[in-house]
């Protein structure tokens, strides 16, 4: 009992912020259930590509490779997923193609940084430029798909008021992203794979001297991470928008990196940070609905940044990145 109280006291500022956000949301939703629920549901939707991107970045950085190519991985996968669906009319094939494309992009990053020992920042930049250039070049305007990924209601859970609409009436990739947060948290901190991943990101030669192959583990993580970024790309073109546009990632890959850092390289933390970013996006839309500040659209545009700065500067302490990120590893 005492420890519960202590926890509450320790987390008092977080709890206050959370309550303030809820209160403000209800206010912005005009004290009616439907708009309030809509804001929260939109929050989750907006956070999906960010949390997926952050998980990708996390797997890479936890194993010692900075991945600033998430943007490019997402964009390329969004394009490939959309194109495959447009050609085959199959959403499944489209999502699978997006996933595979992300994994290939991850393997490419591995080739540049692990095998060729290239500079990781440059390698990531190469992926970004490559993806932007190639997708713009191959993009054919006017191509369409018949539908987006369908909304799936989770049985009776979807009928729970508010909660049901937010969590149990989503599209498939959003569900997958929630699942991945839990799975990756557990894997990173409770499995041998996670232990080895964290070890090679902190002190690769220590891992190597006990027989863990740094190169193999880095490739594995980059490819899995790339796949997750690929899912984020497929989310954008097949689940959120239903079409492909030039440069449609619009910086989400970089925001995902920020989300990862704000979440302190922890999947659950990153999820929280992604929700915050998602919330500011959702509340922006609600402001436009209510006609608030519409005379000064620049103020609405500022909301996400102000909230982010205030909350993160005030509440997130110093985070320590994995010690070995950015350094190519050679044995001799």
């Amino acid at each position, binding site marked *: 009992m005492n420890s519960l109280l202590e926890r509450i006291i320790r987390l008092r500022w977080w709890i206050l912020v959370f309550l303030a956000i809820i209160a403000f949301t209800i206010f912005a939703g005009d004290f009616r259930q439907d708009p309030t629920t809509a804001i929260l549901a939109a929050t989750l939707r907006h956070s999906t590509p960010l949390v997926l991107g952050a998980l990708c970045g996390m797997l890479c950085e936890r194993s010692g490779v900075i991945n600033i190519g998430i943007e490019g991985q997402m964009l390329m996968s969004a394009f490939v997923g959309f194109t495959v669906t447009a050609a085959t009319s199959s959403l499944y094939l489209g999502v699978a193609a997006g996933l595979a494309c992300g994994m290939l992009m991850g393997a490419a990053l591995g080739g540049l940084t692990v095998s060729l020992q290239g500079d990781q920042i440059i390698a990531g930049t190469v992926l970004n430029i490559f993806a932007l250039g190639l997708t713009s070049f191959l993009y054919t305007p006017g191509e369409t798909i018949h539908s987006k990924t369908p909304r799936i209601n989770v049985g009776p859970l979807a009928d729970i008021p508010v909660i049901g609409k937010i969590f149990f009436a989503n599209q498939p990739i959003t569900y997958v992203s929630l699942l991945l947060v839990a799975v990756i948290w557990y894997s990173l901190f*409770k*499995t*041998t*794979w*996670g*232990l*080895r991943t*964290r*070890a090679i990101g*902190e*002190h690769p*030669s*220590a*891992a*190597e*001297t*006990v*027989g*863990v192959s740094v190169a193999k583990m880095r490739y594995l993580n980059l490819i899995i991470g790339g796949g997750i970024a690929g899912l984020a790309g497929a989310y954008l073109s097949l689940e959120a928008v239903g079409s492909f546009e030039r440069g449609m990632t619009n910086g989400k890959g970089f925001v995902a990196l920020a989300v990862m850092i704000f979440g302190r390289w922890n999947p659950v933390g990153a999820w929280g940070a992604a929700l915050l970013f998602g919330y500011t996006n959702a509340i922006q839309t609600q402001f436009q609905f209510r006609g608030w500040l519409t005379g000064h659209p620049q103020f609405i545009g500022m909301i996400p940044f102000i909230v982010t700065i205030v909350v993160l500067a005030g509440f997130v302490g110093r985070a*320590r990145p994995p*010690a070995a990120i950015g350094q190519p590893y050679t*044995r*001799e």
Partner: protein
Amino acid sequence: MNNQQAPLALEAVGICKSFGPLVANDEVNLQVEKGQIHALLGENGAGKSTLVNILFGLYKADEGEVRVAGEKVEMNSPHDAIEHKIGMVHQHFQLVPVLTVTENIVLGDEPTKKGGVLDFEKAAQEVEALGKRYGLEVDPRAVVEDLPIGYQQRVEILRSLYRQADVLILDEPTAVLTPQETDHLLEVLRSLTAEGVSIIFITHKLREVLAIADKVTVMRRGEVVGATDPKETNEEGLAEMMVGRSVVLRIAKSEATPGNTVLSIKELNVLDDRNQSALKDFSLDVKEGEIFGIAGVEGNGQRELVEAITGLRPLVSGSILMGEKEMSGCSAREISEEGISHIPENREKHGLVGPHSVADNLVLNRYFHSPFAARGIRQTAAINEEASHLVEKFDVRTASIHNPARTLSGGNKQKVIAARELSHDSSLLLAAQPTRGIDVGSIEFIHQQLVNARDAGVAVLLVSAELDEILSLSDRVGVIYQGKLVAVAPTDEFTRIQIGQLMTSGNS
């Protein structure tokens, strides 16, 4: 070879290894008998580390073979070495600082539950049991970076024992230990051999070789120059084998002729990094032309004392006088300019700028002065000339003065620092652990330089955890214990035992 030998646990035959033009190992042979402690002795750069890195699969030999229990084996990676039950305790610990003791020990060979889930409880219990059994107790749940160095070393040893190593290679294990920790380690190693473990013990401390080794192989410049039984030799004999000439282990020095007080510290109070009191009303005088040695177990305020004098750590109260001038509150640059030379304890971190050239490091305390700079422009020719001169005078072994300083061996790094600090026109020389981890030849050289500085009228404040160093160099000795100077007297008024007691208990 003869037949009376015990079976060989590990054998290196005709090992050759080059790094570019540098021949690190040339036809090296090593035979380690089962259940013995085999010392590998040699100066820095003699090729000891290269040899054991080959035995552990970290480097691949150009020629020659490694035999385990008489059988030739391929050593392509540490994984192979571990398979053959060879374990290694590295000089620079190969531990992940943010992970726990248990996680570090089991990494790569983890006990698991279903589906690759780490069984942390089981692992922690095994680690605890292992520690108890070998007298290497350490909290399995502690995070490694929070542990003192001596305990981190225990983790390294336990990691090899966890993998049931039959052969344990220790690369300069005592370089980082206090005398007490060293004694304990030697005891542990003895008990390991009783269980049939063979040990390769790399060191350049002759006393340890004589104390513990069953056999010693001496290397010099990449070659084995001899293998002998330590019982049949003595410190001088080993030193001569190692360096290739006779070495003066104890510097001959004349009687000191102390003059005026150069450094006067009064009632100094300083905090350590954790904001705990490190020095308590600490007072000390050092006179010109004397070496004042501060003896003490590490962590009793020596580091904070040196940092306070050099302006790297703020004072809580007290005063530091250089001659008549009050130095407290002055910046490190002002203090250095006032005539304090500083050989820092951590040469890699505070003594050198590793990626910069040897030449730049040699003028690090003067680069902004004429003739090394004119109107803010560096004068390369003058810097290079001075650097070449110092490299020659101080016998720094480097291929070029333009090579990065980090590529030098430990002894040569220390020579660079000594060259820089002693060519600085100063009245006080602060030498903190000046010979830690460097070879006998370099130690002799550095010691001679300290005595020369003294004879030239410099006040020398020597801080060292090596009691032998304190006793052989100092004119006066002060013993520091828990931030206080508990005894000060001319060196010959102390016995070795007395100082040892003062160091560990504060009174004799």
